[in-house]
């Protein structure tokens, strides 16, 4: 019996064209994806590829399959679910179930055959990758050695078990509910479970790994410390949490299946979940009443358009009920709420940067996720509604009623839209609920409404219309759902093969970023424009849906087309034409916008650079340029129009002992700049792309002589899709990059610290050391404009605000010009004004910021000298400009994200305090001690600054906070380290390698300070500081600092400098065993532990030891009993201590001094 059912079913699927369609679609997509990623469409590959992930490595094959594994899920209802559903649908079950078929053969036969079918289809992707990796013209660096085991692993550990596990579940759901759409909706449950577990078990990654339905997090867990080299070669370790995960989910699936199996009966009607035995009643058979005359009551019939319109509403509600009145919908809604709740909870408690649950935050990530779920539900439910009549075999009675096609069509559209709206409302209520729960009371209902019901809903409406169109066109609703998924996924696919025009990317827009300060900024207008374009398109689809409305019987698609032609009357033609013209017009506007964008991108930057080097390379030898010593600026900012106008002048001095006759001038990229010199000169050569000019002075500039450059600058106008002007409606943040600069800018490239040229210039600047700066800024009447320096004067004129600034002393050529509507918090502390310019709602972190500033002010003035300005201004800027904070003169521009930190989160160290303490410390380390243009510069700025910030933490807070700080830095370093196959030593770290300069650097200095003493290390640093702040034309490098440290550090600690600054190595400690013996009043504690260190990627070769390590002893209340520092010279150690109290917890390296990946074995509880 089993074999005959199995064979019959298999044949059924093999005869269906859609089976082949699925196979070849998956094959094509995955094939294109593979060769696309491998650079097939990109042409010649970069000559010096670095940190490249090899595509055919087991890790990467599995990584790419991850995406397909999710798509495959939709095959489960389509094939596995349908294998049982088709019997209900075609009403075969009522006959079939009377046959002597046994339940076991029936269910297993159906499941096994359809599972086999699905498995075969999934293998299409593997075959595509397999062919892909042997395809010609791929970038050689991306393809490694062929490893068939990788494929086997990906399929037999992940894809096929997934299909089996979730196939069982979906099969059970469909068999139980006798509803195929329940199967589709069931898939979404798994997505929810994944999101929820990810967010709920943030602190226990093992549980996330175990409970992930797709085992993705299990892979992440097992490979979290994998280096790039590992990822490029290793097989994924299966025996561990991955295996447990598979077993766990298999058990869940078997339980679900067992339940459904038990409940399954060969009955015509569905069995019920909770068998409600209603009182049975014998109904006496009476048929028609013996009314002999039929006198239908008189009622009014109304077939008017208006009434049909009203009917649409009624019908929509009727349809909606069939969606909403189902347990599954409630489950989805409930899990949706949970998913949002836990996502937000994670964000508000994240250990790295916990953020307040502001409306903006709730609307960013969670709403995006939720909207995608609504979109998937739209695909599914619109299929259900369109095919509802036919599926119930009620279509004939419905189709003969005098209701217009458009009323039917509109009712289904409206029902879907209502479903979407219900869920969006639910999201909004959930969001507000979460805010209430977090005691956050700034609800911003208008923002919820706008974002959900304009920004998100606009896309959903388009999907609703498209879904209705597809499902009305295609009779097979599974195929319809699949095609809709393809359209959704395909949009990213066609970007992959180089089609980027918004004219073709159906209903696709990058998610909008919202700033409390500047709203959606300039993104909103183009966003809505593109949405309207696709909306008009989908209205055309709707009109076609109307014309092709499936009513009655059609023999062929041709017949539907004939009917369509008949239906196409003048009115419809006119309406369609109107929308078509609208669609084309919007398309034209988008096309124009993109043309402007393309025009600016016509010349590829790499090619322009190559050409430039060829043409202008000879000027790279001209390194002697005058230095800017004096900057004067008049800057008018027009926020409403996104424009600015600037006039200004430089005084340039020849600081060298040679005369200068050639000037190399480069002006801003996005600006229109005019300039004149106050001496005669002539143009020799210019480059349009880089705005670079070479001019010859008629009379050379002699040493110590100066010239003056006058300039005027205005921004280029914004185009539809391109932001040329950095002036915002609110929160403008302009930088010095708009100003003219001197020198062959490519000489700016970072150099080795041993390079003699490196020490001549500060990082990133060829033409200035320190400058005098003065400026007059003007802005609109409701905004404040700020530049570095002291405010000299402010006034109002012609409805604008004017501010004049001037610096006391000299500052680095690092300038910010800010304009916005701010509230200001001011405090005078030790004769310096501490000012916070902030958005009116962002007040939660201001006190912490001021405390951070004060603490850094005190600490740094104590150790490193005076603060040079009369004020410190922290100024908030919109998130669209970045999430960072920085210091420019006496102003600290700080991203609004930093203002939105959650001040009460327990999990994080105090970010608001930390950021401001860090930035102000840069006033000494970065702005006074300026590092040279050399590798390792980050040590002098970021490492020292973060180290000082950590010391400030130690003084200000309980030890927990500084430990959190160190844990954060260690995590940051190790995460960066595993992803960098060519990790540099700290002394040669590139500026962009922040995991080294911040992460490793601060740990290094902290460890040194721990053994050397804070005071002693700070004095060495102060010495170093004084040395270099007094020198002219000689900037400090990392090697200078290391030399200084080596001079002043005792021999026993020299190894630390080598280990941390000059090597890439890891430590590993482990507590093996603890014995405690009481001796009178004292306790003899014997500790067995291991200590080792090794070079990165060379774990076998242990390095010789003469190191210090600390062991901490704690009592039952976690209070420290003793902290012992011991010297180790070998791997295995046993050492005894006499303690006055019995310890209950022992930790090796309790203060996070070592760089260690696995610290789980560093603790023993007694």
């Amino acid at each position, binding site marked *: 019996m089993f074999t005959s059912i199995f064979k019959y079913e298999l044949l059924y699927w093999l005869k269906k064209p859609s089976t082949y369609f699925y196979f070849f679609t998956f094959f094509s997509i995955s094939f294109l994806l593979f060769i696309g990623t491998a650079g097939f469409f990109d042409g010649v590959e970069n000559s010096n590829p670095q940190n490249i992930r090899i595509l055919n490595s087991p890790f990467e094959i599995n990584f790419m399959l991850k995406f397909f594994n999710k798509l495959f899920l939709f095959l489960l209802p389509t094939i596995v679910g349908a294998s049982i559903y088709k019997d209900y649908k075609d009403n075969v079950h009522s006959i079939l179930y009377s046959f002597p078929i046994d339940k076991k053969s029936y269910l297993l036969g159906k499941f096994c055959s359809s599972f086999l079918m699905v498995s075969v289809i999934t293998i299409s992707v593997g075959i595509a990758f397999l062919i892909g990796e042997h395809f010609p013209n791929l970038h050689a660096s991306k393809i490694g050695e062929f490893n068939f085991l990788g494929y086997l692993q990906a399929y037999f550990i992940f894809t096929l078990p997934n299909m089996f596990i979730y196939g069982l579940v979906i099969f059970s759901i469909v068999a139980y509910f006798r509803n195929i759409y329940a199967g589709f909706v069931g898939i979404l449950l798994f997505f929810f479970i994944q999101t929820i577990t990810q967010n709920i078990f943030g602190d226990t990654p093992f549980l996330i790994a175990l409970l992930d339905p797709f085992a993705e997090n299990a892979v992440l867990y097992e490979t979290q410390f994998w280096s790039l080299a590992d990822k490029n070669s290793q097989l994924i370790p299966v025996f561990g949490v991955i295996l447990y995960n598979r077993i766990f989910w298999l058990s869940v699936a078997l339980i679900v299946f067992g339940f459904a199996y038990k409940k399954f009966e060969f009955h015509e009607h569905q069995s019920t979940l909770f068998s409600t035995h209603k009182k049975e009643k014998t109904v006496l058979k009476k048929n028609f*009443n013996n009314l002999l005359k039929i006198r239908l009551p008189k009622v009014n019939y109304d077939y008017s358009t208006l009434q049909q319109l009203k009917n649409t509403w009624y019908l929509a509600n009727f349809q909606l009920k069939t969606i909403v009145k189902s347990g599954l919908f409630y489950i989805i809604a409930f899990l949706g709420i949970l998913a949002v709740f836990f996502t937000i909870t994670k964000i508000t408690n994240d250990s790295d940067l916990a953020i307040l649950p502001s409306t903006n935050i709730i609307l960013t990530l969670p709403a995006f996720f939720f909207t995608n779920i609504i979109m998937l539900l739209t695909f599914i439910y619109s299929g259900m509604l369109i095919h509802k009549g036919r599926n119930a075999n009620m279509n004939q009675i419905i189709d*003969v*009623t*005098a*209701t*217009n096609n458009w009323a039917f069509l509109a009712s289904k559209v409206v029902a879907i839209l209502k479903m979407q709206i219900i869920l969006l409302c639910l999201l909004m209520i959930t969001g507000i609920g979460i805010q209430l729960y977090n005691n956050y009371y700034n609800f911003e209902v208008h923002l919820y409404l706008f974002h959900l019901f304009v920004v998100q809903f606009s896309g959903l409406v388009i999907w609703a219309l498209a879904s209705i169109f597809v499902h009305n066109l295609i009779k097979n609703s599974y195929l319809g759902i699949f095609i809709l998924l393809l359209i959704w996924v395909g949009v990213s696919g066609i970007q992959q093969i180089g089609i980027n025009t918004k004219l073709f990317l159906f209903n696709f827009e990058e998610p909008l970023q919202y700033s409390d300060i500047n709203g959606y900024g300039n993104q909103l207008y183009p966003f809505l424009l593109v949405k309207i374009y696709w909306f008009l398109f989908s209205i055309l689809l709707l009109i076609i849906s109307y014309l092709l409305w499936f009513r009655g019987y059609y023999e062929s698609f041709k017949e539907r087309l004939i009917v369509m032609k008949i239906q196409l009357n003048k009115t419809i033609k006119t309406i369609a034409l109107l929308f078509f013209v609208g669609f084309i017009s919007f398309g034209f506007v988008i096309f124009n916008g993109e043309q402007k964008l393309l025009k600016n991108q016509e010349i590829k930057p790499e090619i322009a650079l190559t050409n430039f080097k060829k043409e202008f390379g000879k000027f790279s030898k001209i390194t002697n340029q005058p230095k800017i010593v004096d900057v004067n600026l008049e800057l008018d900012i027009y926020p409403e129009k996104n424009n600015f106008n600037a006039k200004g002048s430089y005084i340039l001095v020849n600081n060298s002992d040679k005369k200068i006759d050639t000037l190399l001038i480069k002006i801003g990229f996005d600006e229109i700049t005019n300039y004149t010199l106050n001496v005669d000169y002539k143009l020799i050569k210019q480059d349009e792309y880089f705005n670079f000019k070479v001019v010859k002075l008629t009379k050379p500039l002699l040493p110590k002589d100066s010239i003056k450059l006058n300039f005027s600058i205005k921004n280029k106008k914004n185009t539809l899709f391109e932001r040329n002007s950095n002036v915002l409606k609110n929160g403008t943040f302009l930088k010095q990059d708009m100003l003219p600069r001197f020198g062959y800018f490519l000489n700016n490239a970072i150099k080795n610290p041993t390079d003699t040229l490196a020490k001549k210039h500060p990082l990133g600047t060829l033409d200035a050391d320190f400058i005098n700066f003065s400026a007059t800024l003007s802005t609109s009447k409701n905004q404040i404009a700020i530049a570095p320096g002291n405010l000299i004067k402010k006034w109002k004129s012609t409805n604008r605000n004017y501010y004049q600034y001037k610096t006391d002393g000299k500052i680095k050529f690092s300038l910010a010009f800010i304009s916005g509507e701010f509230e200001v918090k001011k405090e005078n502390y030790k004769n310096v004004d501490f000012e916070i310019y902030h958005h009116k709602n962002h007040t939660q972190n201001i006190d912490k910021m001021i405390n951070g500033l004060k603490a850094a002010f005190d600490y740094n003035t104590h150790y490193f000298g005076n603060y040079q300005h009369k004020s410190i201004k922290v100024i908030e800027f919109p998130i669209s400009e970045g999430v960072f904070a920085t210091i420019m003169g006496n102003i600290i521009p700080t991203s609004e994200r930093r203002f939105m930190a959650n001040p009460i989160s327990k999990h994080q160290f105090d970010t608001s305090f930390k950021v401001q303490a860090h930035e102000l410390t840069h006033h000494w380390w970065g702005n006074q001690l300026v590092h040279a243009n050399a590798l390792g510069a980050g040590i002098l700025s970021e490492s020292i600054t973060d180290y000082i910030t950590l010391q400030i933490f130690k003084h200000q807070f309980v030890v927990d906070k500084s430990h959190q700080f160190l844990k954060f830095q260690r995590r940051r370093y190790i995460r960066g380290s595993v992803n960098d196959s060519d990790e540099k030593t700290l002394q040669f770290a590139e500026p962009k390698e922040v995991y080294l300069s911040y992460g490793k650097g601060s740990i290094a200095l902290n460890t040194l300070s721990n053994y050397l003493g804070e005071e002693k290390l700070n004095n060495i640093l102060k010495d170093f500081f004084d040395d270099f702040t007094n020198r002219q034309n000689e900037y400090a490098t990392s090697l200078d600092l290391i030399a200084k440290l080596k001079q002043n550090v005792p021999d026993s600690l020299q190894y630390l400098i080598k280990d941390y600054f000059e090597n890439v190595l890891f430590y590993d400690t482990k507590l093996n065993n603890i014995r405690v013996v009481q001796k009178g009043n004292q306790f003899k504690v014997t500790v067995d532990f291991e200590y080792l260190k090794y070079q990165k990627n060379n774990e076998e070769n242990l390095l010789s030891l003469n190191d210090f390590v600390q062991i901490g002893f704690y009592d039952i209340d976690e209070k420290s009993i003793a902290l012992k520092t011991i010297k180790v010279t070998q791997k295995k150690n046993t050492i005894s201590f006499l303690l006055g109290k019995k310890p209950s917890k022992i930790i090796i390296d309790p203060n996070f001094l070592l760089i260690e990946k696995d610290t789980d074995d560093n603790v023993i509880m007694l």
Partner: protein
Amino acid sequence: MSLQIKQLTKTYANGVKAINQLDLEIKTGMFGLLGPNGAGKSSLMRTIATLQNPTSGNISFDGIDVLKKPMELRKILGYLPQSFGVYPKVSAEKLLDYFAVLKGIASKKDRTKITDYVLELTNLSDVRKKNVSGYSGGMKQRFGIAQLLLNNPKLIIVDEPTAGLDPAERNRFLNVLREVGAENTVIFSTHIVDDVKELCTDMAIMNGGKILQKTRPSEATYQIKNKIWVANISKEQLLEFEENYKVLSSSFNEDNSLAIRVFAETKPNEQFTNTSSNLEDVYFIALKNANL
């Protein structure tokens, strides 16, 4: 108020002519459409019911060009297909209300009034809150009649409605149809001759997409009065008799002999005795004639 069908042809893509140049006029009253399975009855009914487009031809009812203005016909059309299902988990009451909306009854009060009436009429009042999908075959068929009446139809098409009903249920069902048919045009397709006999004033016999005979049941039986003969023969003789006579039907007797009915103007031979003609004879004669 008559339904006129002219030169109606429906050719399916596989070449089958389900309706073949069919001409038919149907007047007020019950009209029975008799024919074997596959005769094209359902195709014809679906075409009249605006569910399917013919390949060529015309249909008009009461001045409405059905093919050009299907919506006009739908306003006064009641249709009960051969088999139908309903949305799962919706009660009779709610489903009827839904149909009442589809059929143009705007006011909620009116809808309640009329659904109450048709529920009463079809004796479904007791189970009005029960899901129709859980109804028995007879109840569902009654529900079909209930929904059909909602728009007070002038043209009613019922496609093989009595199949699967028990005798009592069938009788009642036919009574209601008769009642409805008194003032309206009811087309009633069946392959059960008795249905037509009991019910119809007019009838047509259809096969192969064509009308073989259009007549009145009483008239048709009268026309073959005294021309029907019966004889008892052995099984083996059947072939011989079929060759020589127009054998209309045969049925086994208890002694395993065959009773055959033959159509002939005069007594064929001594074996035969005359018997009263019935509608079934008319039906078989028409089918036989068509085959010749």
